[in-house]
């Protein structure tokens, strides 16, 4: 995979794939399939009338969110967006809670308080998105600011689409992150359309070129190549963790469905969809696993089948989840006390190996005394 040479200052070229074990690779495939099949199930539930409102998925963008989220350690934090279901799964959300959230059920991540992809499991180190984009870039920068102030080697990562780069808040977040060299990784998902608006009506210059003007590197990558996304994210996360500041990663990908299920995508040329469907991130990766890493067809089939049966099981659980008690509608406007976020799962083998070797120091040191962050106990590495 070729990085955009014009914008890679501070980042190394992709150095092969030696950061991943065979098991890691199987996991990358598993998470991408989990996203694909869970979203297909969600769409089916929508068509059955079980999902209030509309339905939004990230079909075609599985490699982007899985590859980037896979690099994070337990105590890192994420603000995940609506095309990034795979990142939730990497951090430990289960598909039943995702599907239940879409159906407004008690078992959903927000318990019915918010819908569709507007969720984040605070127990898994995630702050869920709002509809205003790219608001979470500012929040992620703020989390990174706290890590920097307390000298904690932790990283915040967030996503936004190319459409969001037109909003003034994007500039505010990039500018602030650049000034203070915050440990934050911005993943720009260029999926070619902001709802129906093509990129040539969104900006005159590719937003990756702007990273330099904010004082940090930007790197473009094939967003449908999960290992390429993983590798640039790994470098960016390591840079952030070691105090070298933010990185903007632009993942070129394609939104293969409409903005929502109500959108027939009539504005997308057929040949464009055909071209991108030949670059399906899951099928690309299956071929690479077979060709370069000796995965047998039976092994791939086994992964597909086990993911499919897991999604079946989760869908049953979600459908069985009751609707929330209407009395909860007025509860929880105000907090009674501050509570720390929990830690996310960190399935990349680096974290479990480091855990075993360094007794919990895999993702940084213990925060200093008097620091409320110390309540966040380390150690949920898978």
């Amino acid at each position: 995979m070729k990085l955009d040479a014009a914008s890679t200052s501070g980042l190394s070229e992709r150095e092969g794939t030696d950061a991943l074990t065979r098991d890691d690779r199987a996991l990358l495939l598993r998470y991408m399939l989990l996203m694909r099949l869970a979203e297909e199930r969600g769409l089916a539930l929508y068509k059955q009338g079980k999902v209030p409102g509309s339905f939004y998925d990230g079909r075609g963008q599985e490699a982007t969110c899985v590859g980037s989220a896979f690099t994070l350690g337990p105590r890192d934090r994420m603000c995940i967006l609506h095309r990034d279901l795979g990142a939730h799964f990497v951090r430990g959300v289960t598909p039943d809670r995702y599907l239940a959230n879409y159906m407004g059920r008690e078992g959903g991540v927000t318990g019915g308080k918010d819908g569709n992809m507007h969720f984040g499991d605070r127990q898994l180190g995630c702050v869920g998105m709002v509809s205003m984009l790219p608001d979470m870039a500012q929040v992620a920068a703020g989390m990174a600011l706290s890590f920097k102030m307390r000298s904690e080697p932790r990283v915040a990562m967030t996503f936004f689409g190319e459409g969001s780069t037109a909003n003034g808040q994007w500039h505010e977040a990039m500018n602030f992150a650049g000034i203070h060299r915050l440990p934050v990784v911005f993943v720009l998902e260029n999926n070619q359309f902001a709802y129906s608006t093509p990129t040539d009506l969104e900006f005159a210059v590719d937003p990756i070129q702007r990273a330099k003007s904010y004082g940090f590197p930007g790197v473009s990558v094939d967003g449908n190549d999960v290992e390429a996304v993983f590798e640039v994210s790994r470098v960016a996360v390591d840079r952030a963790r070691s105090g070298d500041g933010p990185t903007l990663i632009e993942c070129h990908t394609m939104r293969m469905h409409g903005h929502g299920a109500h959108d027939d995508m009539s504005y997308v040329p057929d040949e464009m969809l055909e071209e991108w469907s030949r670059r399906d991130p899951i099928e690309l990766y299956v071929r690479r696993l077979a060709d370069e890493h000796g995965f047998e067809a039976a092994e791939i089939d086994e992964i597909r089948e086990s993911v499919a049966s897991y999604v079946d099981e989760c869908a049953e659980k979600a459908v069985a989840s009751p609707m929330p008690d209407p009395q909860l509608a007025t509860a929880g406007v105000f907090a009674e006390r501050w509570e720390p976020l929990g830690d996310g799962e960190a399935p990349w083998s680096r974290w479990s190996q480091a855990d075993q070797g360094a007794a919990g120091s895999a993702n940084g040191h213990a925060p200093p005394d008097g620091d409320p962050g110390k309540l966040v106990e380390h150690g949920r590495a898978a």
Partner: protein
Amino acid sequence: MAEMTYLQAISDGLREEMRRDEAVFCLGEDIGAFGGAFKVTDGFIEEFGADRVLDTPLAENMIIGASIGAAIEGMKPVAEMQFADFIACGFDQLVNVAGKLHYRQGVSVPMVVRLPSGGGFSGGPFHSQNPEAWFIQAPGLKVVAPATAEDAKGLLISAIRDPNPVCFLEHKGLYRHVKGEVPEGDHAVPLGEARVAREGGELSVIAYGSSVPLALQAAEELDEDIEVVDLRTLNPLDAESILASVEKTGKVLIAHEATRSCGVGAEVASLVSERAFEWLDAPIRRLTTPDVPIPFSPPLEQAVLPQLDDMKEACRELLAY
């Protein structure tokens, strides 16, 4: 106790909390070396360093958004809007992110937004507003508006300790004109509790912020049996204190400098009519700024902001009813 101005009391409360809790830090425009447009953080950068007295770019959504992220991770940011008016530029982060996070996801956001508000000094349409009602319409935000030096310190300390986003309206007209005895050291005034600023039996003036000293002066000059209730916290409102005063006096004047329609006065009037109708001996009256931008030129500004004579006249009319 020490005598302080309202402004000194705010500084004192902020300094006290920053000394007590390392998680507390300030951020905003020109608050560091310059000490803030009104000098609330004067000398702070020398004591606490540039990391905890953080000069930000001119980017209000960033100030609020970064505060949210830091608050979620256990810091206690105190963000300064240079003027309350500029919260309009950070409103999205405040109402859509900060205000809704706990309801939607159980994520608490312990942050304070300091808002130098109010007119009376030819600040014009963009440096004089009283935007408190904007926040009350956005669920999830607490709203505080002290009227005395003691409360300015005590409410700020409570706001910093509160696990929710708190909008702290500090009236610029009170900064240097209001003085009072302020407890030294730790002094917390609980949020959500009104205060009877003056006891009386014939008329209740329900006020907050700059209208409290105005009401007290009017009551003294009229030498009438007027009770003045200082709301102190606008959300959540202390309904019981309001109702207790109305039950005692039977007549209600609600006074605030903010514009009239759908303001705090409208909410208090509704509360009284719903829950204290039987006790009323006169129609509920409001003394507010009319629904206009705040004009620049002194005679124009004085024509719209509630003045002492307006307060006295409104009290006299109700007492005579």
